[in-house]
Each structure stands twice: as C-alpha cells, then as structure tokens.
C-alpha cells in the first residue's frame, strides 16, 4: 500500500499532467482555484505554460489558441465561470477544438455560495452553448476518480476534438483524502489524429462519424480555423447540404463511440427490485446507504454513472431492465433525473434531491429508498 493524500483539485491537476497536458489558463474562483495553483506548480518544471487570464472568457480564448497550436489544454472554473465560458464552449464544439474543462461545481444560482457544494450545473454543462451539439461530461466521485477521469477527459478531447468537462464538486475538489496509488487505473494515452494524407489538407474533411484529422496552426501546412459555419475547407458556407453534414457529424462522432465513452460503476445484488442511480459525490453516500439497507435485510442495487453526457442510453436501458423501481439521488433539485425518466420512459422513477449547501447524508437516501 502506498497512500497519497490530496484533494480532488490536486488530483485533477495530477491527472492532467499524467495525460500530457502542457497548457493551462484560468481565472481564480472558489472552489476551483487550487487546480490553477497546482498547475502553476506542475507545468513550469515540465516546460508547460500556465497563465492567469484577465477573465474567464480570455482564459478560454488562450486555451483555444494554444489547442489550435497543438497543445493539450486544461482550464478550471466553477458555475459563474462556466457562464462566461459559454461563447467559447460553443466555438470549441462547432470548430472541433480539443479542450478539457474542470468545473468544480458550487451552489448556484449566480454567485450563489462560493464554499458550498452542489451538482448545480449538470444540465448547464450540456446545454450552456449554442446549437445543441453535444459535449462530453464526466463526473468523478472522489479524488482518485478526479485523477483517472481527467486522463479519460484528455483522451476523449483529443479523439473527438470537443470540449470535455470534469463535473467535480466543491465537496470533492476541496476535500482531501487518501487513496492507494497502486489502485490507479489509467487508460493508455490517446493523441489527436494527425493528418497524414498526400493531397492538400482540408481542415474539416472527416469521415461522417469521426473528428477530422488535425494539423496545428504554425506547422508546415496552412491551417484555417473559424467560428463561423464552415464547410470542410474551413471557409464560411451557406450550402444547406454541407451545413447539414457538418452539424450531423458533431453528434454522430460521439454517438458512434458511446460504448467507449460510457464509464460507470455498478453493484448489482441478486434478487433486488430497486436500482439506485446516482453520480459524483452523492454516489458515495448511496453506497453507504445501500450497505446499511443490506444489513437490515433490504438490499438494493446501485449504478453510479461517470459519463453523464452524452447520456449513456443503452447502458441505462440495459441496467434498469431487470428492476421494478428506479430511485435517482442528486445533489440538486432534479436535473439528471429528467434524462433517466426520458430514457426509461414508463418505468417508475423516484427522486430525492437536496440543494442546501451540505452533502446528502446516507440516512436521507435510505429514507428515500424505503418510502416507496
């Protein structure tokens, strides 16, 4: 056993370093600031760049520029910062710019509570951009997850050339805990596919279910990048067929890879009729509640989602099928439960949520499960 002791935010930074991140730009905001602090300690000795933007919009702009020059970039913020990131999230989605965004969520709306946790932004991360094209959102439940999922996030950002969120929470980011480094399970690193074709480089030419091969701005081959609606050549277009193809591909490139994007943990107990679905920090209290219920002779099964967006629909359908009843627990007043109800339409789905600045205790979850 070789225990390390760190907060979730440090683990995100270590995950980023393990993934080969070499550029960070951010703006201080509680409870995400210590990701920035850690990157400022870790990047310079490795030759990377870490800067403080004049605001969140600029921080994302710096990241977009650096990513287009071929860097693996990370930024970190909380809800109020995500609000300001919005225009650049849209840019990165539409123009296929790899980015990893750590969102250490705090209690909203608006300024809300800087030092109180909540899974405030679960729908906002998915929909806080124009056009409705998808992003990937991964939800860690503890510090170890922060490290592992950040590596996955970089891999996904590189492969699919889209923004990938780490949906952390003040209660993970600023809670220090021990974990065994020997238990770490890091995926092999994925880098964006370079263009190796022999013809002229067409920057957005891609298979219908893939991100386009990448070349950096500043390389031998001239590259065009634009936030405007563009054709494969990177020039603005009004051709409906070309537009439709590009729009569809932004969805299909993720849909086609859902099997690989879907990350989760489960504890299926034979002969149980209730499946409790949760994610993030809440899934730890759910595990405690499930253990107590089992001790009382009323066991339940649990599913903890790590990939929230795109919604792992096949997984939800498959895992929920054997159960009579689904219970969803969230650290908000009901955000992701709407996706679960949509996917499992017709199946009884009960919900318990809490938005009061403190963690949902296992006792509340047991109550929610037992009150059927």
């Amino acid at each position: 056993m070789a225990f390390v002791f760190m907060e979730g935010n440090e683990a995100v930074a270590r995950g980023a370093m393990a993934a080969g991140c070499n550029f960070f730009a951010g703006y201080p905001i509680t409870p995400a600031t210590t990701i920035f602090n850690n990157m400022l300690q870790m990047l310079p000795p490795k030759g990377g760049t870490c800067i403080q933007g004049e605001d969140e919009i600029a921080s994302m702009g710096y990241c977009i520029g650096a990513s287009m020059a071929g860097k693996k970039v990370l930024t970190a913020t909380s809800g109020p910062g995500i609000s300001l990131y919005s225009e650049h999230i849209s840019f990165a989605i539409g123009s296929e710019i790899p980015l990893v965004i750590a969102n250490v969520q705090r209690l909203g709306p608006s300024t809300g509570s800087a030092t109180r946790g909540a899974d405030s932004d679960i729908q906002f991360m998915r929909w806080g951009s124009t056009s409705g094209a998808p992003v990937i959102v991964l939800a860690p439940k503890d510090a170890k997850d922060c490290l592992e999922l950040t590596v996955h996030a970089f891999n996904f950002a590189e492969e699919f050339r889209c923004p990938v969120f780490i949906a952390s929470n003040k209660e993970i980011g600023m809670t220090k805990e021990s974990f065994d480094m020997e238990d770490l399970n890091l995926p092999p690193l994925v880098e964006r596919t370079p263009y190796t074709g022999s013809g002229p480089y067409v920057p957005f030419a891609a298979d219908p279910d893939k991100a386009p091969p990448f070349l950096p701005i500043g390389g031998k081959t001239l590259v065009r990048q634009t936030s405007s609606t563009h054709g494969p050549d990177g020039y603005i277009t009004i051709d409906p067929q070309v537009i439709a193809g590009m729009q569809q591909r932004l969805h299909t490139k993720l849909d086609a890879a859902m099997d690989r994007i879907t990350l989760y943990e489960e504890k299926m107990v034979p002969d149980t009729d209730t499946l409790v679905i949760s994610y993030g920090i809440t899934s730890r209290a759910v595990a405690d509640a499930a253990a107590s219920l089992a001790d009382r002779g009323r066991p339940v099964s649990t599913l903890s989602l790590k990939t929230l967006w795109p919604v792992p629909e096949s997984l939800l359908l498959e895992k929920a099928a054997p159960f009579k009843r689904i219970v969803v627990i969230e650290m908000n007043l009901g955000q992701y439960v709407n996706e679960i109800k949509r996917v499992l339409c017709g199946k009884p789905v009960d919900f318990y949520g809490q938005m009061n600045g403190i963690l949902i205790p296992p006792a509340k979850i047991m109550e929610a499960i037992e009150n059927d």
Partner: protein
Amino acid sequence: MTSFLNTSRPPVFCPGCTHDRITKSLDAALVKLGIPDDKTVIVTDIGCSGLFDTFFNVHALHGVHGRALTYAAGLKLADPSLNVIVTMGDGGMGIGGAHVLAACRKNLDMTLIILNNFNFGMTGGQYSATTPSDARVGSEFLNQAEIPVDICGVVESAGATYVSRISGHDDSLSDELVSAMQHKGFAVVETLGLCTGRYTKRNQLTPKVIDQMIEQRPSPGGVIAKNQRPEYGDRYRQLAKEKGKFPEPFVVKKQFDMPDTRRHEVVILGSAGMRIVTAGDMVCFAGISGGLNVSIKNDYNITVLRGQSVSEILLSPDTIGYTGIESPTVVMALSDEGVARRQKIFAGLSPDTYVLKEASVAIPDTKAQVEEIDFKAMKIKKTDWALASLAVLAKHEIVLNKDMLVFALKSRFNEKVFNLSMETVDKIV
C-alpha cells in the same frame, strides 16, 4: 513571395471601403517583410475586419467577437516562432476592451491592427466606442450622450510598447505596418477609415477629413520609449525556468499499528490563526501511517484571518463513502467561534465521545466525556493549542499515539518547525 493574397477569395468590401486598401497594404507589408507564410497567422475579430483571414494565404483563426487577442496570445505562447497579426474593428476593441488592456500590459510580440471606421458597419451602422458624439449613426441619439475613446491614448497608458495612428488612405501604411510587425513586443496600429456602406452616407468623412483628425490628434509615432520592457513570452519563460522541481505527491506507507482501528470521526473547533487545518492534516498523516483511509474537510471564512476554523476528519479501516460527520468520536473545542459554528453537534454526542475542552472555551451541555485542559496555564501559546490537543490524544492513545504524531510532524514540517513543535508535544506526552 510577390503576394500573400488568396486569389480564390478576393476581398468583398463595399466600393470605396478603406478596408480594401488596408488589405492591400497588409499584403505589401508581408511581402516587404518576407516572412514565411507557414510561420504567420492572421487572427480576426467579427464584423468586416473579421473577413481578413480569408484573403491571405497564411494560417488563419477567426473567432468570436472581441476575443481575437486571446486566441492570438494562446497561439503565441504555444508557438513563440509564430508571427501573429490580429485585425479588429472599433467594435471588437470596445467589446473586447479588457483583452486589449491585458494585451498591452503583457507585451507579447504580436501586432494588432484596429480598423477604426467609427461605427458597426455590418449590423447597420450603430455607434461604437469610437463614434464621435456629433455623428449621425444607426443608433438614433445614443452616441450623443457619450464620448468616443482615444484608442492610442488608452493602449499607450495600458503599456503597449508600440502605438501609432494612421489613415487607411496613407501611402505609407504598408511601411507603417512593416515597422509595427518588426517591433519586438505588442504593437498597436490604429487605422482610420471610411465605412462607405453605412457611415459616410450620413457623415462628411473623407480621406482629407481623416488627415485633419490625425493632425488634431497626432500619432504617438510608434515605439513608446517609456513603455519599453522585455517581451512577455521571453520574460515568462525566463521566470518559469527558475521554478523549482515538479512536486511529486507525498506517499505514506503503513508503518504503525493503530492504537484502535475503529472508525473515527474527529472534529476540531478553533479559530483562524490556530493552525487548525495543519493539525487536521497531522491527524490524517498519522492515520495513513496507521494504515487507515482518511478524509478531511475544512470550514473557514473567506477572510482567512478572522472567524472560525473547523476541521472534520474521518479515519476508517474501510473505504470512506459519505464524507460528512455523523457521530463524532473526538471533538476538540479550542475556541468559542469554532464551537459556535458546530453548536448543534454537542447535544447529540454519545457518552463514548471524547471531548477535549480548553479551559477558556464554553461548550453546550453534552453527554460525552469532557476533559478540560488549561493550555494557557501550561504556557502553551494559542497558536499551538491544536497541536497540543493532538499530543493529548497521543497521551491517551485515542486515534493516534506519540510515534504516529511524531511521524506526521516530521512528514509535514522542516527540521526547525519540527523541533519547535516537539517542544509543545514534549510538555504533554
């Protein structure tokens, strides 16, 4: 190279638009400079100046309104060998004002060309940050209630190392652009021009009037002597190089047997300045050295030198799920502020809970076993009460023993602080 212009995408400006002349002058400047196309990027803003990236055969990045300088900075930091040129209108300068100021303060080696044509041409001639108060524009009377900004004045005071103002119709424009691009540092060139599609329809603005405007407010003339300083990227890299070693995570191996391997919930109630968070970390290091899983949450004011400081620590042989405190096994009451913050827990404490109370601190009624200790009488300073409390725990072998505490102190502190800490510890155990 004789021209960088993209012949398949010729300029599409309104007849008479100054942007057309600026496009040709920029091309002439690039040719004169003889810089390689693959080491040059044009970053463009929104509006008519945002079309520039399509006219040139160089790398191109066109982004959202007002943010061009931020992408440019990201590119330049990522690849210092790039020649970075940014085109932006008076609109982009206005909406992206914070980025203009930041770019001036940073002094990255980039060239910003602000194509000032006194209005928002593309959206209908609305007033911008540079529209004169007496101009007739597409926003009714609104410009009459404001004054225009002096771009050169602003960027000069913000620290730009090269600033000039020039008519877009000036024959020396390409030479001016050459000298701006040759400048090592952040160069801003404000070009004044005509928006024939909108502005000049209702306002008497001609190349001659522009010349008069420049006579009235002459160009700062290029290199701003008082602002000269190292280029940001060079300076950044020099400073970053001096940064020490990569901080490897601190790894703790199990090396002690815990005095008791029960799950513990420890709450330390203190105030700012009492090193509560440090004491909490010590409990955690001790716990890990005893082979336990640990977690800690701290609650303190954002004004860090005032108010409560509370640490909540879990130590468990099993994986820790819920990280909240449910039934504390140890409570250390070291200040009234800290106690006030967790007032409610005392009524629910079990008779098995060990409460350490400093003599000066009042606590609510509780069924827990309370030990009162007068640290003050022991001549222990308030800043050491949290540490002294850990020594009391070690004496009773609750949660940790002395070996574990010494290990934790050694892991966290340098020799000098460690020795000072041990003076306190040795008074107790």
